[in-house]
């Protein structure tokens, strides 16, 4: 187990040592700051949200949810693909570590990355919202914030896992980012187009946004429950990860 921790450290350092590492964090801070400032400046005084409402709003899919997911996709895409394009995969795989372990370490480091992005966004949102709007809980409480953040994390997690798999398949960072983002953008289109058919219930896109089950949301198909969505998502995750690991282990590195 000790050596697995070291492998994750390695993967984290590969992301962290890049000069571009802090750009996504800066982007998040700027966007949140800007939105908060604009809301403070232009909204009518009676329509002012509380700090917690602001945070919950920022984390909804239509707020920062998709931006966070895009940033996570960009961060994930290089994890496997960059090793191939830099050629470092050759020196990485001739160590006394199994390929499965190496890929698992990469996946864990990617998860740590999206977690750090979300927590950072949460901290900045709370700070900006609290400073500008105060913390008196009105419509949204801490529980709502937590659930919204969790739903956003799950949303990012699914797309990051898909992106991770595409990275293993294509070995190209650019292609991986492209496909990952297109999938996110296709989501509502596909759900809209297929909504007449029953099969839509089992499509990844329909289930990926768990925030619909939070207060006031309407599930895309009637009768869908949180438990149902979680099971569908879990099946997809297993498929994606299974395909990634099998491909990575079998691959001839030429």
């Amino acid at each position: 187990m000790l050596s697995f921790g070291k492998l994750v450290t390695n993967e984290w350092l590969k992301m962290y040592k890049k000069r571009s590492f802090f750009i996504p964090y800066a982007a998040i801070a700027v966007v949140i700051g800007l939105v908060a400032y604009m809301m403070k400046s232009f909204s009518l005084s009676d329509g002012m949200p509380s700090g917690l409402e602001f945070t919950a709003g920022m984390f909804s899919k239509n707020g920062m949810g998709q931006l966070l997911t895009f940033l996570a996709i960009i961060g994930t895409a290089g994890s496997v693909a960059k090793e191939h394009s830099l050629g470092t995969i050759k020196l990485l795989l001739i160590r006394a570590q199994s390929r499965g372990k190496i890929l698992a370490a990469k996946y864990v480091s990617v998860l740590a990355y999206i977690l750090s992005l979300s927590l950072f966004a949460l901290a900045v949102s709370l700070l900006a919202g609290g400073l500008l709007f105060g913390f008196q809980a009105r419509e949204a409480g801490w529980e709502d914030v937590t659930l919204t953040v969790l739903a956003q994390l799950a949303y990012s997690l699914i797309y990051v896992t898909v992106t991770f798999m595409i990275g293993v398949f294509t070995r190209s960072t650019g292609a991986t980012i492209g496909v990952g983002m297109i999938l996110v953008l296709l989501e509502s289109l596909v759900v809209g187009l297929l909504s007449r058919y029953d099969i839509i219930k089992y499509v990844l896109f329909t289930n990926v946004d768990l925030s619909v089950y939070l207060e006031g949301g309407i599930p895309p198909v009637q009768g869908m429950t949180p438990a149902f969505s979680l099971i569908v998502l879990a099946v997809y995750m297993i498929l994606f990860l299974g395909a990634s690991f099998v491909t990575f282990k079998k691959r001839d590195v030429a």
Partner: protein
Amino acid sequence: MNGPFVKGPIEQDNTDSIVLSVQGVTKRIKNRNIVDKLSFEIHKGEIVGLLGPNGAGKTTTIRMIVGLIGMTEGDVIVKGKSVRKDFAGAIAHVGGIIENPEFYPYMTGYDNLKQYQRMTEGITEERIRTVTKLVGLEDAMRKKVKAYSLGMRQRLGIAQALLHEPSILILDEPTNGLDPAGIREMRDYLKRIASEEGISVLVSSHLLSEMELMCSRVVVIQEGKLVTMRTLGASGISDASTGAEPERVHVTLRVDDAAAAKSRLARMEEIRILNVSEESNEITVSVRDAYIPRMVGALGSEGIGLYRIEEIKESLEDEFLKWTGGNRIA
């Protein structure tokens, strides 16, 4: 002992000294055998060259040994551990440089080595210092790798390969893209590593003159099959393949009167005249080493002036072309 004519692989009595054993390794892609039942062994402290024309399967073979490419059949045993069944155990004894070593360019040389340190148990800071000193990169360790020259990167490549104190170094075209000074430096490192630390080296290349200077033995493959294995002596290649009996050497004499020299030498039983060139006054003979002083004496007593004696060595290149049937690209 003047040992240019050792036959076959160096005889090692105990099989314990076998570090790497390639056993009937085959790689089949779409019904074509890229590598076909290839077998050879490498002993402790040997530098073995894997030679072959382009497309012969050198790179595929090397990558199968280090587990980057899967084998269709056969197995590779490193220090008694199977690459197929116990990859981590086998590869722990292997240090590899596959083509030009690639590092994370945005990290320093030290950070890159730390990456590989974390991947193997028991590599100390002291060991990192030792290998960087060995390859002479102490001053460059705090620089980012993107600022390294190709030669420096190659040295860092050796450092990472030696980090976990392997029993065998496996190098795929290590001198690709290096300038003559870099090539020489590489060669000196490898020789020193092999002799001082007893580490075996397997190196693939198509640079024959390089191999000749570096290797104690060559394994020649073509179209994925073993063509021949040769032990290289101190002064050139084994003569066994040319059919001449051992100890015989070919020498060219430059004299002032080739015709007279020819008639004199023709009377000596021990000497076979191979070629006479009257225009340039040169005569080429095949003669036993021990007999050369007498030959010179005979020419001297006839009053024939002798200007030069040169040994004709078949270069590895000549041999190679013979083995692989010219420059046919498979």
